[in-house]
């Protein structure tokens, strides 16, 4: 490899591309929002939206400026670290988002801690004992989970654990989180639901990635050295399957930030996904933009992180 293509170069190149992507997305989101029928003034007034009232409110909110200048204004503000002010309730977007983002990240974090180890263990186990009863059970389970709509899983979980058994609270937010056990209880339901949803895909991908590396000559070589199955899989196959596994995990996790709208709705959990939904329905442009940026940043950073793990786990790329 030529000297200039060091990992740092790769990292910087990737970061640059990510930034560019962000700008493209913000632009696209802005104009998609512009295309939506109705604007924040009309939506806010709802049934009371008489033409005069709308015009007055528009004027008051500064919506009469041309779209492009508002976009540029927002972008410039962003560069200065200012996400702008919500049209709807005049609060700083940072203020609106920070709490919500914290919630989302908390939920995503706990779910990650629960689901990733389990998913990896099951995926690797299924690959290790390929064709065994264990493998088949895992396969059937993952297919079943993939095949059931998320809101069904969530509703069933509430019914069973909160309503019938009364073990867990039906709502997560605002529940008593003073003690560790109370906190675990509060998060249990959304975490269980989300873990189900994201694990299935991770299990499948992990299994496939490990099986692929098991079929390589160096794993056969380990076999011919007298290595046990465990050693072959964990010591030889797994380190080389890290790249694809990291990618699968990143894709699944990126879903945890923006894709959890259904779980947020059912468990009444105030995260960014719901915030974005609100923002869209009130055409609150600065908020929509900022949420979209958050999703994009989290997606891109996860993907980039996975890329970097792939690079670092491969001595040929690492230097």
């Amino acid at each position, binding site marked *: 490899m030529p000297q200039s293509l060091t990992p740092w170069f790769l990292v910087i190149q990737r970061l640059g591309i990510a930034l560019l992507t962000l700008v493209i997305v913000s632009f696209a989101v802005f104009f998609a929002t512009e295309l939506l029928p109705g604007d924040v003034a009309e939506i806010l007034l709802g049934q009371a939206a008489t033409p005069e009232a709308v015009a007055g409110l528009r004027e008051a909110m500064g919506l009469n400026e041309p779209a492009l200048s508002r976009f540029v204004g927002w972008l410039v503000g962003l560069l200065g670290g200012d996400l702008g002010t919500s049209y709807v309730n005049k609060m700083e977007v940072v203020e609106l988002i920070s709490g919500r983002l914290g919630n989302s990240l908390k939920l995503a974090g706990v779910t990650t801690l629960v689901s990733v180890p389990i998913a990896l263990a099951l995926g690797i186990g299924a690959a290790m004992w390929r064709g065994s009863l264990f493998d088949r059970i895992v396969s059937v389970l993952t297919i079943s989970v993939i095949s059931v709509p998320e809101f069904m899983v969530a509703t069933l979980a509430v019914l069973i654990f909160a309503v019938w058994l009364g073990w867990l609270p039906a709502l997560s937010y605002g529940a008593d989180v003073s003690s560790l056990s109370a906190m675990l209880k509060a998060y249990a339901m959304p975490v269980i639901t989300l873990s189900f949803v994201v694990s299935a895909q991770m299990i499948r991908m992990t299994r496939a990635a490990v099986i692929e590396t098991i079929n390589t000559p160096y*794993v*056969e070589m380990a*076999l*011919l*050295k*007298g*290595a046990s199955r465990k050693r072959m899989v964990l010591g*030889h196959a797994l380190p080389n399957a890290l790249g694809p596994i990291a990618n699968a995990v990143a894709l699944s996790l990126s879903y945890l930030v923006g894709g959890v709208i259904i779980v947020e709705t059912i468990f009444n959990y105030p995260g960014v996904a719901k915030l974005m939904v609100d923002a869209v329905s009130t055409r609150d442009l600065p908020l929509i933009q900022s949420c979209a940026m958050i999703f994009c940043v989290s997606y891109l950073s996860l993907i980039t992180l996975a890329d970097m793990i792939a690079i670092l786990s491969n001595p040929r790329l690492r230097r």
Partner: protein
Amino acid sequence: MTNPLVSVRDLRIGATTDAGRKVEIIKGVSFDIEPGEIVALIGESGSGKTTIALSLMGHTRTGCRIDGGNIRLGTSEITAMSERARASVRGTEVSYVPQSAAAAFNPSKRIMEQVIEIAAIHELMPRAEAEKKAVELFRALALPDAEHIGQRYPHQVSGGQLQRLSAAMALIGDPKLVIFDEPTTALDVTTQIEVLRAFKSVMQKGGMAGVYVSHDLAVVAQIADRIIVLRGGEIQEVGSAEQILRAPQHPYTKQLLAAFEPVPHQPVDQPVQAAKPTPVLEVFDLCAGYGPMRDGVPLAKILKNVNFKLERGRNLGVIGESGSGKSTLARAIAGILPAYRGAVMVDGKELKPDLQNRSKDDLQRMQMVFQLADTALNPAHSIGSILARPLTFYEGLRGKAREARVIELLDMVHLPAALRHRLPGELSGGQKQRVNLARALAASPELILCDEITSALDTVVAAAILELLKELQRELGLSYMFISHDLSTVEAICDDVLVMYKGEVVEALPAARMSSEATHPYSRLLISSVPQLDTGWLSGLEQDPELVAQFANR
């Protein structure tokens, strides 16, 4: 009389094919190996030599299983053991040196880790001791920087070194039997010598028995005490190395040996249209490379100022080892990799560097045949449609006329007409390479670029392909540019030879007088490194160590 170390009796191994049919791939093989003896298993692809070797470790590849017979190694009955018991034998009693060390080393772990893994798995000795022993083995295998080479990753050492390291990996557990599975096949000839020497000396010192699997009689002759000739899963002949080489009994052994005999090339009589003096191909100062372009020069420059001329009806051989740029040369000429400097002239007409800018006529005149017949044929198309496409593309042939021409082409390469309805996957390697040739011929070219077209084939099959090439040249007045790493192949078909080293032509000379007249040190090294069918060749060979250090790709 001592007991043999290994005894194999009536071994039968079956396999389930992709289509679900059960076939027997080893059909009742019996042989013994005495302690300290090196036995070679020789045969062409599909002869079952690797399958037998692996079965000595109790291992069969996916889809195969031992159906009958028994294998005894020392006191252990391999065939009767559980998988767990077999694992305990592997590495300690019998160990394995793979065909491609590059693939058999885990890319993400340090070399030392992998070399001493056998000691760790079987808890043979403490880690420090194992590392010390590994370093000793590295020395014994003549590896450079033996103290520290273990700290590197597999991709950081050369192929030849990796192959020797894999031997160290096999020897760390002091096995009684070492299995070498074509360990030098993937190496360049200059590298092969050093590896063979290292193997031979450690085996002799350790007094271990060995099984050496190879298709190359000349290599086997250097290392084996006894040779077992295999074909189609059955033993054809067993004998001492000397006997097999000097006095083969079985007709198949004779055939194998015959394929090794160099057939001197008879230049074709000067073609009919000799009136045309322009060379069919002329190359001036050709430079090409890969990577992003900067100031019109690519980042990785491969070819450096290559010049040569190929007269009509003559054949040009290009030899060199891996990394010499010989394939890049072919690609640059064909326009697949546009040259960034220099010129390519066909029939005295300068071609555009990029094939997209060349006219159909230019393209038609020059055709290329690739090394790997498997990947050069689209597995989704029938042979008939593969051959039909150039006919339609260049000449606009359709319908009956095209069909007739396809049959004619198949006939030219000695394939039955019915083959046109088959898919490439259903053909043998030799047949595929013939189809490849036929496709090139379909364009009615004047020049064919042959990129290592016989390298992946068994010797007998390769010899037949060379015969075919000569025959076609006689009939069609073609010119070949023949790229190969194998001197004898080049000698067999070419009039002139270019020796390439690191992207440059170091020497150009007539093929017939190559051995005698080569002057460039690299050419001499290359020529002297080709193994001969002589058991004493390796021990008698002397090479200038400085020369080796300068040029060999170790």
